[in-house]
């Protein structure tokens, strides 16, 4: 068994872990669902999934003492982390959903609701497959052509301004928002790679092979 592809999917009771686990297993990764903060440091790869509200998500991470454990793993032990959807949002410093809440703060950034002006008549939630514009087809975005489709479902967004990213992808929904990014060992995707067919599987592979 190739230990380098052992991944912890962080289980904090927020949503569709089953789908994430099943996509990672399909790729052949050795996947553990991890609740215990003390076990996290055993993994080189962490995936923080999640659907739901920012506030609730942070509450759950704190209740399980997972917030500090994640920060330690990423900052001090150099683990690679991929945040998906809410999991991506929680990586940054602040979220405004159901009241202002501090995030994990691994990166600066504020997650806020799409405004009417930004949406330009589009409906929220932003649901469905949408194309992303990719800055560089390398790293997390290896083998992913520009304008590839990924599955989104969200009402809150992170804008690219003031998030210092190495590689990023933008999606346009009235306004351009941050669809995915890579900064050193920290990756995030607002869309669901585990729900984005071939494109999503490629990106998940990239997280292990090219980040």
């Amino acid at each position: 068994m190739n230990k380098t592809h052992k991944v912890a999917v962080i289980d904090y009771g927020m949503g569709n872990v089953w789908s994430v686990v099943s996509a990672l297993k399909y790729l052949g990764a050795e996947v553990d669902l991890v609740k215990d903060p003390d076990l996290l440091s055993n993994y080189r790869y962490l995936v923080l999934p999640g659907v739901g509200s920012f506030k609730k998500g942070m509450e759950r991470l704190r209740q399980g003492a997972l917030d500090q454990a994640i920060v330690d793993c990423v900052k001090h032990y150099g683990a690679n982390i991929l945040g998906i959807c809410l999991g991506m949002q929680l990586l940054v410093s602040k979220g405004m959903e159901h009241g202002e809440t501090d995030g994990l703060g691994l990166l600066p950034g504020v997650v806020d609701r799409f405004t009417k002006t930004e949406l330009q008549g589009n409906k929220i939630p932003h649901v469905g497959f949408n194309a992303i514009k990719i800055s560089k087809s390398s790293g997390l975005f290896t083998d992913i052509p520009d304008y590839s489709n990924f599955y989104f479902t969200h009402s809150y967004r992170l804008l690219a301004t003031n998030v210092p990213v190495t590689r990023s992808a933008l999606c346009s929904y009235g306004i351009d928002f941050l669809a995915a990014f890579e900064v050193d060992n920290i990756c995030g995707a607002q869309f669901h790679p585990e729900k984005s067919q071939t494109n999503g599987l490629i990106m998940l592979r990239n997280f292990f092979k090219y980040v």
Partner: protein
Amino acid sequence: MLSRNFRLQKVGNYEWLKKNYNFSKISFSIDELIILDVSRNKQGTEEFYEYVGLLTEECFVPIAAGGGVRDLEQARKLLQSGADKVVVNTLLVENSDVIKDIVREFGQQCTVASIDVKKSDSGYKVWTHNGCIQQSEPLEYWIESAANLPVGEIYLNSIDRDGTGHGYQFDLIKHIPQGISVPVIMAGGAGQYLHLNEGLNHESIDAVATAHLFNFVGTGLKNARIELIKNGHDLPDWDVDLASQLKNILSS
């Protein structure tokens, strides 16, 4: 398990479904899979949750599932069994606070309100409890109250057209109140790609659904998607072979 298109015809159990429908393959021709438990009795059982998980193995598209969801715990169970969204129907009229709880816990995007509609002498009426009980309020009222909860999407299903293959009940569109901000999925009646095409051409329809057996068996669904793309609809086109090459790539 009953097929939605022939509501009263038993088409087979899980083994039958698994054998006759390759959901993993079908998933490359769709943007989302909706699985509804329409059993006449004993909805929302452990067995159903298990089926959702088993049927959607290797399906990397969003999965909405429901049928008989009455409380937050059932919603959680579905989400733990492979669903990404919870479909609610009767709850909308019986106990919409539970839908609010689901939204609070899992977010607005996690809920789909399925609204079953049937034409009556006094206009279109909403039917709940697996299509058994008619609600007295007009259709507009229920669409609006679902949107205001708010749910993430509305699945508007014509009971009259469901399973006929005669095309959608586009008349229903007139009853979608102005300014509804949640996406609307049209369901019930599609039997060929032209119906899907017609649906996607309507400005107030955000997505089209089909449960027609014709689409699932053989290449109907795949061809329909190709035709829709040819007709200029912006649908993703997936590389099925590449997906199979990615299997176990990390273990080698």
